[in-house]
């Protein structure tokens, strides 16, 4: 178990949440294994998958927690959100109720997750154009009003899946790396030991400080 098959600079925990049947598991399988299964079963408890991407020359390993949407398959809520730095809140553009329930999921995030968590609203199943019941503009407006980023995806035809994950991970990376400039290394971010510590040049730090103090 000790053998680490890959190396990474950052490890981010991201949770996938949203109503049952909106396609969370397929989003995950499309992103991590490029697979899609029309017949997929309900997720029980939680499933995990990881994939690494590059941002600014840094390797970012995303540890994605695909949670059960159905209440009877959910484990205790607090467990899902511990240590999560990002959340993809998924709804089905063809089922309006799943969109209406976004508010509930946001409330759960507020109650259980870190207050800095990066949240992306994801309207999945964009391939079902003829069945659309949630207008893109409406969801976009809602996302703006709640300070979420927004994207529409289709796990079936792969539209935007890559972009969605890439965007949220990049956003998290920006936040964390900016934090790091302000309060540098010293085990600040989850990092494996066999990776070179990310050195922030002192000059940069000094400059930033100077600007602050002006």
């Amino acid at each position: 178990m000790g053998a680490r098959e890959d190396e990474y600079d950052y490890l981010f925990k991201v949770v996938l949440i949203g109503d049952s049947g909106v396609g969370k598991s397929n989003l995950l399988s499309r992103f991590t294994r490029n697979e899609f299964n029309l017949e997929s079963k309900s997720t029980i408890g939680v499933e995990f998958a990881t994939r690494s991407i590059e941002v600014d020359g840094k390797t970012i390993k995303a540890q994605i927690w695909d949670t059960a949407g159905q209440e009877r398959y959910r484990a205790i809520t607090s467990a899902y959100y511990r240590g999560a730095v990002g959340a993809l809140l998924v709804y089905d553009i063809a089922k309006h109720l799943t969109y209406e329930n976004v508010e509930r999921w946001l409330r759960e995030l507020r109650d259980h997750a870190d207050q800095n968590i990066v949240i992306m609203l994801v309207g999945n199943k964009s391939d079902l154009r003829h069945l659309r019941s949630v207008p893109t503009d409406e969801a976009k407006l809602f996302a703006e009003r709640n300070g979420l980023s927004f994207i529409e995806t289709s796990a079936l035809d792969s539209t935007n899946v890559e972009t969605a994950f890439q965007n949220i991970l990049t956003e998290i990376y920006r936040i964390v790396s900016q934090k790091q400039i302000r309060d540098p290394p010293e085990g600040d971010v989850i990092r494996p030991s066999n990776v070179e510590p990310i050195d922030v040049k002192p000059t940069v730090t000094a400059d930033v400080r100077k600007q602050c103090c002006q």
Partner: protein
Amino acid sequence: MRATIEFEECLKDSPRFRQFVSKEESDIEHLEQRLEKIIKLCNVAVDSGKEYVKNQSAFAMSLWDLQQHFLDNKNAHNALGKLIHCFQEMNKFHTILLDQASRTVLKNLSVFVKDDINQVKDYKGHFLKVSEGYDNALIKNAQASKNRPQEMQEAANILSASKSCFQHTALDYVNYITLAQARKVPSILSTLLDYYQACVTYYHQGFDLCNDFDEFFKNISEDLNALRGDYQQLEKAMQNRHMSVNRYCDSNTNSTSNKIEGYLFKKKSKGFKTWCRRWFYLSDNQLVYSDLDSHCRKRSNEDSFSVMEEDLRICSVRPVNEGDRRFCFEVISPTKSHILQADSADMLSLWISALQHSIGAAIQHDSTHHSRPQSTNTPNNALPAKRRIHWEEFLKIPGNAYCCDCRSPEPRWASINLGITLCIECSGVHRSLGVHYSKVRSLTLDAWETENVKVMMELGNEVVNRIYEARIGDDCGLKKPTEHCEIGVREAWIKAKYVERRFVCGMPKPQELLASETAEVLSIDSGGVVEDGESGGSGIAKRATLSLGGTRKWAVKKLRRRQKQRPLPKTLSDDPSIYNTAKTGDELDDDDDDESINIPSMSLSISRDDLLVIGDDLALDRLETPGILGSDQESTDGESDAETPEELPFSQLDANQLLYMASVVHNLPVMCMAFALGADKVWKNPQDRQRSFLHQAVISGSVMACEFLLLNGAAIDAVDEMGYSALHISTAKGHIAQVYLLLKHKAAYDLASSDGKKALDIAVDQENADIVTLLRLTQLNDEIGPNDEYNGEDETYKNVMKDFSKLPASQTRVLRQRHDSNTLESQRSSLTNSD
């Protein structure tokens, strides 16, 4: 009296008359203009006065509002109230004055202008017309020709008529003028006099009002002087404000007291690892911080205070130099580490020394007073559940008030796998035996897991000594240790007691039991408990004389503990022999599994003629026992297999079978006895699907029994003939607490049974979300691997696992989830879950 004109002049229509008329006319004209100006200005004054009064009353209303602000200051509230009342009265007077002004000035003068002056003016027109007619008549008369007498006559008539008319008119006109002129002075004066009187009334009212309030306001101004004095003193005190900066710094850096509080930057241990500034302080040996940040922003769902370290005694503090931030220090406890940052080097050293001082004081306090400070004002809910048990409760368990080995009072240590309390010297010896014999914990310093507490509750020194010191009367070449004995004595005794198990009585031999009708059986009964007063406190094992008539079988007593006193079976007093019959067992089974603590003891007793029940003792039934924790209550809550203990033939009575059977009924004292009798930790029951003790404990639904077996080295991953491990079975039974316990003890989760199923497969089949999550999470954690110094993920894992440990046992939750069809989720899933 002004000049008037003779009526004669009027009749003569003399130039003087005309002069008089035009003079009077211009005079009246002039007067009218003045009066109109006065009326206009007075109107303006009244209107602006009304506006003023309106604004005044708005002002008073705003004062009422201000008064509400002083609800908490009764004096200010009253004074303001009176003042406002005064203002409002004055305003009322003003309203009256304005009313009077409009009544007098406006009305009277208007009437004068309208009636008198306008009359004069109106009549002027008439007079002019008549005067013109008269003139015409004069001219006509003058023009009349001498030759026309008729014409002359006519003109003379007209002339005389118009002359007469003119004269009358002129007289009337003069009359009007004169009257008007005569009336203007009294009218105007009386009007103004009225107004003056209104003003006098106004001021008079005001004066009366002020008189009424005079005393009150005098008092207020006296109070004011006092307040001003206070203010000046305060001001003077405040002038020295900047001095306090220096003094504060001095006192801060000089202070040696362990009372310290203030802002520190705290690094978040998870998520974004941000720094936030929090107010920290020390309270009751705890390091506590306020959840409010320095800008008073609060997260809605949190309490206002969090406990960072629950017990300073197990913490240490050190400065942190690595990293870019200055003035950092680290608070380390066995399970956690927090990085904090002070504002300056002085503050850093102050915090470190204060913390170290507090830690020292806490330990000192603990060792001198032997009591953990009661947390009275700390937020209870911030403490995890496992700390709620007060360690002193452990000492209430029978025998636990004295060290299990040397009998010295106030033991502060425990051996968690033996379930006993120890003094510090004996605990040291126990440590030296190695953890496979004794696992030592501090009662006061260590954090106790619930399941360990339960094990302690089940056993205790008295019960354990009945097992491990059963035969000290017989064979005692050794000196028994006492409170102040030498270390060598202790070592020898403890080694003999637990390693060699020299004082443990032997297993009753079936052959012996069967050999004679009446056999003297060495029971594991009651070392010190006086049952009937005969055997005294001799310490010699009481020997039960058993009538073994047709005894062929044995069973382990199923433990039932009750909180409430249950009426004993009536038959008990009459015929003790039937007390333990299977029939009684059935009666007991009708009860719910309400297990409180009754310390059971081991004994052999005869229940039915042919059944020997092990682990049954009546003597301790009514013993006062602490009701701290419902022992195994919750872990066996959902247990349904309350069948009567299985009976086995005597030919199968050995330590392993005894442990095996005791595990089924999670009878810890008997399990303890079986270990003492040398049960084989890796033994499997060849007659029962190759199952191990742990399998049995898991099946029994008890978390406590599992913990006890694992503490005593039972093989965690043993599989039965179907290839099922304990984890498989607990998963199949949906027992979250057991799964959690097994995973915590590092059970192998990827073992496949003979039919190829892993625990996870079973959990998925059963749709048990919590167990699936536990298993997958543990696997994930192992895949990530130990994260050496940066144990970020590890921490998430630990925290999540902790969440699960707080779940009450389990089956109820699963059932609730399965059958709860009313949740919104299921409603929504019924709509959304079409695929």
